C-alpha cells in the first residue's frame, strides 16, 4: 500500500526543506525524500562547512598578521591541528543538519530516506537500504539540486583530483594545490587553503577572476589581496590533464598556446555546478528540461506537469541557497492555493573571499541594458570608516549605482569586511525602490561598518562627509556624478 501525500518534496536542501516546512505549515500532508544529507549540499558540503573553514583560516591569518601589531604575541608559531579543524567543522554541520531534521519533525513532515525515482507524474519510488517503497502525491516539488562539473581529464577521485567536497574535507595540511577555476568556489577554497599555508595556484580560462559573478572593481581589490597573500593566478589558462607525480600531481596547463606543468600535492577542480536533472527519472516521465540541464519552469516554478514544481539549483540560475529557499516558500503557498509568483528584483550574492564581495541589484552594464541611460555612481572606502580601521580591515569600498533622474537605488556592490552582512540593507533598498536620500537620511549607528552604506549614498549624491571626494568623486557636481568608467 503506497503512502499518499498532498505534497512530496524531493531533496532536503535549503530549497526542499524550507518548502516542506511551509507546506506543513499550510496544512498540507507533506513528505520529504532525502538520499544523503539533511540540509543538502549547503549545510553539509557547501556553504556552511566552507564558511567554518574560511572563518578559521581568516582567524589564523589575523593571529599571524594583525595580532603582533596590536601587541598580542604568541610564544611561538600558531599550531594548526587539521584533524581537530575537521572535527569542529563537522560539529557545525551536524548541528545545523540536526536542526533541520528537528524542524521537519516538529512540523510533522514525514521524512523518507532513500533515492527517489519518478514512475509517473503522481508516483515515485523511494529506494533505501531497507527496500523500495511507492509514494504517491497530488503535488511534487523537485529540489534535487546540482553537483560539481567534471572537466575532461580530471575525473574526481577525491584523493588527487578534488571537487569542492574533497577540498573542504582535507584533514591534513597540503603544501601546494592547483585550483582549476577562478570562480567563487575556487577562490573561496583557494584563499582558505592559502591562509592555512598551502601554496595555491589558480588556473582560470577567462581573462579575469569571478567573471560575470561580481563587479569588476570589486574583483580588483580581491585580486590585489590574493597576490599579497601569495596566491598565484594564471589567467587565460587551460587545464589539459594531470598525472601522478611522486606523492602529488603534475598538472598540464596551456597558456598562450604553450604548455607548462604545475606540480602540487592536489588539484582542485571548481569550474561550476550542473543541475541534477539526469537523475530521478525526470526525463523518463517527460519532464521538460532545457539545453543547460535546468528543468523548465514558469514564474510559479511550475514545470510542464501542472502538479510538479522545481526549485533551487535544478530550476534555474542563480544557483544560490537563499534563492532556493525563497522559491520553496513560494511553491508551498502556491500548492496551498495562494497566488504567488517569483518576482523579486534581486537575489543578493555573497562571495567569501578576502575581502568579501557582496552585491544586490544591477551592475552598471545591467542598469544600462534595462534602459537607465543616466546613472549616478558613488563609492565610499572602508579606509575612511572607523570601525574598519579598528578591525584592521580597510581594503575595499561600498559602491552604489542609482538612476540619476529619480535617485532610485539600482545596485549596490560591496567589497570589504563583512560585506556579506552589510548587503541585506542594500537588498531591502533595491526591493523597496529606495532613493539615495532614503539611505543617506537613515541614521546609521556609529561606529559600525554599516555607516559606509549611508556614506556611499551621500557620496553618490556628491557630498560624503568622511572623504574628500577625490579621486573617488568630486566635491561639486564633478566626478561623483560622472558615469563610472
Amino acid at each position: 500500500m503506497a503512502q499518499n501525500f498532498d505534497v512530496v518534496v524531493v531533496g532536503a536542501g535549503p530549497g526542499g526543506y524550507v518548502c516542506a516546512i511551509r507546506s506543513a505549515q499550510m496544512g498540507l500532508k507533506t513528505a520529504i525524500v532525502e538520499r544523503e544529507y539533511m540540509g543538502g549540499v549547503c549545510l553539509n558540503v557547501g556553504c556552511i562547512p566552507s564558511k567554518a573553514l574560511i572563518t578559521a583560516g581568516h582567524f589564523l591569518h589575523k593571529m599571524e598578521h594583525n595580532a603582533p601589531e596590536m601587541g598580542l604575541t604568541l610564544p611561538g608559531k600558531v599550531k594548526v591541528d587539521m584533524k581537530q579543524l575537521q572535527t569542529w567543522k563537522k560539529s557545525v554541520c551536524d548541528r545545523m543538519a540536526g536542526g533541520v531534521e528537528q524542524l521537519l519533525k516538529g512540523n510533522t513532515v514525514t521524512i523518507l530516506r532513500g533515492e527517489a525515482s519518478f514512475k509517473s507524474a503522481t508516483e515515485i519510488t523511494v529506494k533505501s537500504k531497507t527496500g523500495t517503497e511507492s509514494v504517491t502525491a497530488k503535488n511534487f516539488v523537485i529540489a534535487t539540486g546540482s553537483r560539481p562539473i567534471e572537466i575532461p581529464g580530471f575525473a574526481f577521485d577525491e584523493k588527487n583530483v578534488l571537487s569542492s567536497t574533497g577540498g573542504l574535507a582535507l584533514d591534513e595540511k597540503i603544501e601546494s594545490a592547483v585550483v582549476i577555476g577562478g570562480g567563487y568556489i575556487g577562490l573561496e577554497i583557494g584563499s582558505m587553503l592559502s591562509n592555512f599555508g598551502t601554496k595555491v595556484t589558480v588556473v582560470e580560462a577567462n581573462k579575469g577572476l569571478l567573471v560575470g559573478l561580481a563587479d569588476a572593481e570589486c574583483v580588483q581589490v580581491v585580486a590585489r589581496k590574493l597576490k599579497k597573500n601569495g596566491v598565484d593566478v594564471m589567467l587565460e589558462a587551460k587545464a589539459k590533464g594531470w598525472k601522478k607525480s611522486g606523492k602529488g600531481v603534475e598538472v598540464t596547463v596551456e597558456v598562450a598556446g604553450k604548455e607548462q606543468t604545475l606540480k602540487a600535492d592536489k588539484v582542485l577542480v571548481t569550474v561550476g555546478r550542473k543541475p541534477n536533472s539526469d537523475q530521478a527519472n525526470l526525463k523518463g516521465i517527460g519532464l521538460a528540461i532545457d539545453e543547460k540541464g535546468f528543468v523548465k519552469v514558469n514564474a510559479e516554478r511550475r514545470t510542464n506537469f501542472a502538479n510538479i514544481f522545481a526549485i533551487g539549483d535544478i530550476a534555474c540560475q542563480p544557483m544560490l541557497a537563499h534563492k532556493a529557499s525563497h522559491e520553496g516558500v513560494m511553491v508551498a503557498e502556491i500548492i496551498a492555493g495562494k497566488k504567488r509568483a517569483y518576482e523579486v528584483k534581486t537575489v543578493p550574492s555573497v562571495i567569501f573571499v578576502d575581502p568579501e564581495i557582496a552585491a544586490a541589484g544591477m551592475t552598471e552594464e545591467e542598469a544600462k541594458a534595462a534602459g537607465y541611460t543616466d546613472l549616478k555612481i558613488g563609492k565610499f572606502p572602508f579606509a575612511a570608516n572607523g570601525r574598519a580601521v579598528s578591525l584592521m580591515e580597510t581594503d575595499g569600498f561600498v559602491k552604489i549605482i542609482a538612476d540619476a533622474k529619480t535617485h532610485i537605488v539600482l545596485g549596490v556592490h560591496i567589497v570589504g569586511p563583512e560585506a556579506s552582512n552589510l548587503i541585506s540593507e542594500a537588498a531591502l533598498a533595491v526591493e523597496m525602490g529606495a532613493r539615495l536620500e532614503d539611505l543617506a537620511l537613515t541614521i546609521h549607528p556609529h561606529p559600525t561598518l554599516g555607516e559606509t552604506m549611508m556614506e556611499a549614498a551621500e557620496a553618490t549624491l556628491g557630498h560624503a562627509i568622511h572623504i574628500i571626494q577625490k579621486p573617488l568623486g568630486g566635491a561639486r557636481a564633478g566626478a561623483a556624478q560622472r558615469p563610472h568608467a
Partner: protein
Amino acid sequence: MATKNVQLPELGEGVTEGELVKWLVKVGDKISPDQPVAEMMTDKATVEVPSPFAGVVKEISKKEGDVVEVGATMLVLETDASAGASAPAATAAKPEAPKPAAVAAQPAAMAASAPAPAAARTSGGAELYPPVADARVLATPATRRLARESGVDLNQVRGTGVAGRVTRDDVMGSLGAGAVSAGTPSYAGGGASALQAPSISRPGYQSPAGALDERVPLKGIRKKIAENMQMAKHIVPHFTLMDEANVTALVAMRSELKSVGEKHGVKITYLPFVMKALIATIREFPMFNASIDDAAQEIVYKKYFNLGFAADTPNGLLVPVIKNADQKTIIQLSREIGDLAKRARDGKLALDEMKGATVTVTNIGSVGGQYATPIINHPEVAIMGMYKIQEKPVIKRDASGAMSLDAIQTMNFTITADHRLIDGAVAANFLKAFITRIENPGVLMLDMI
C-alpha cells in the same frame, strides 16, 4: 480499466474560470465523446461543457456552485483499457495551468494502470497572468504580492508615488475595490469591465419568524447580473433624459422595407434604424462612445462602434454585441440581431459575443412601458432606451393658423448617461440630434456607409 480526467476546456478569450451551474451527468452514467457533462456559467453566458472522451463517470470532482479554473479536473471517467491505450493522455492537455489541488490525478488508479501521466501537461510551465512585474516597475515586495493576489498587472498600473512608484492604493484602485470610497477602477480596453466585485457591504436578510419563504442560491447568470448592476450603480452617477419622437415616417419606411427584407429572409425591426441613428449622432458627440479609465485618470474615446442590445432570455438579461455596427447595412444588422437574439434565448451565445460593447440600446418598449431609467453597462458611459410605438393625436396648424387634429406615430426615447463625463445640456442636445434623425429617416441615408 484506465481512468481519464475531464478538464474544464477554454471557454473564451481571457476567461480563466467559470461557475459550475449544473451537472448533466452523475456517477455511473455512461457517456459518449462530446456529450455535454455540465453547465458552466462564465462572465455572462452559460455554456455546456462536453467530455472529449467516452467512458463511465467514476467520480465527480466539483460541486454545483464551485468556481472552476480552466484546466481543472471536473470529473474522472473510467475508460476501457483499449480506448485508454489508443488515445494518448496528452490529448487531454490544456495550455492553461490548472489549479494544483484540482489537477491531481487519482493516485490509486494511476498506479494501477496508466503508463503515461494523466496530469495536465504544458510545454514547460504555463504563462502566468498577471505577468511578472518588469524590472523597471517600482513597487515594494508587499505591494507586488498584493497585486499578484488581486490579479492586478503591475506593468499596467500607473504609479502615483514618487518617481512613478506604484503604491498600495494604486493597486487597490486598479482593483476597483475602493469604488465606493472614491477608489479608481481602470478601464480595460475592448473587454468587459475589468473590475472585480466591489467591496460593498452585503447585508443578510433575516426572514421573519414563521414566514413562508424559499431560499435558492444566487448563482449563475443571475449572480453575475446582480454583481454587474451593483457595480455600475456604485461607480457611475446616472441621469436619464426622456423625449418623444414622431416616427410616422420611420413606421412608413420600415413597413415598406419589411417586404424587401422578407425576400432576403430577414425580419426588419426598428432596432437597426435606431442603431444607425445612434451611431450617426455619436459621431457628433463622441463622448457617448467613451469610457473613463479612473486608475489612469483618462477618458478613452473609442474609434469603433460595437453596439450592445439588451435581450430578455429565460435565464435573464443578456447583452449580445454587434461588432463594428457602423460598417454594416440595415439588412446585415437585422440578420445579426435576429441570430444573436435567438441564440441568446437558447443559451448558445459565445462569451466573445457579449463582450466589448461601446454603447448599448435597450428595447424594453417591445415588452411595455412608456419610459424607463436603464442602468449603464459599465465601462460604457451611455445606454439608449426605445419604447413602444403609439398612435397619438396632435394638433396641426395650417398656414392660415387653423387647427385640426392629426394622427401620428410616436415613440419615446431615453438617453441615460454617465454624469461624470456627460453634462445634462450635452445629453439634451444629443437626444435632440438623435430625434431629428429618427424623425427623418431619409436623412440617415446621408450618414450611411
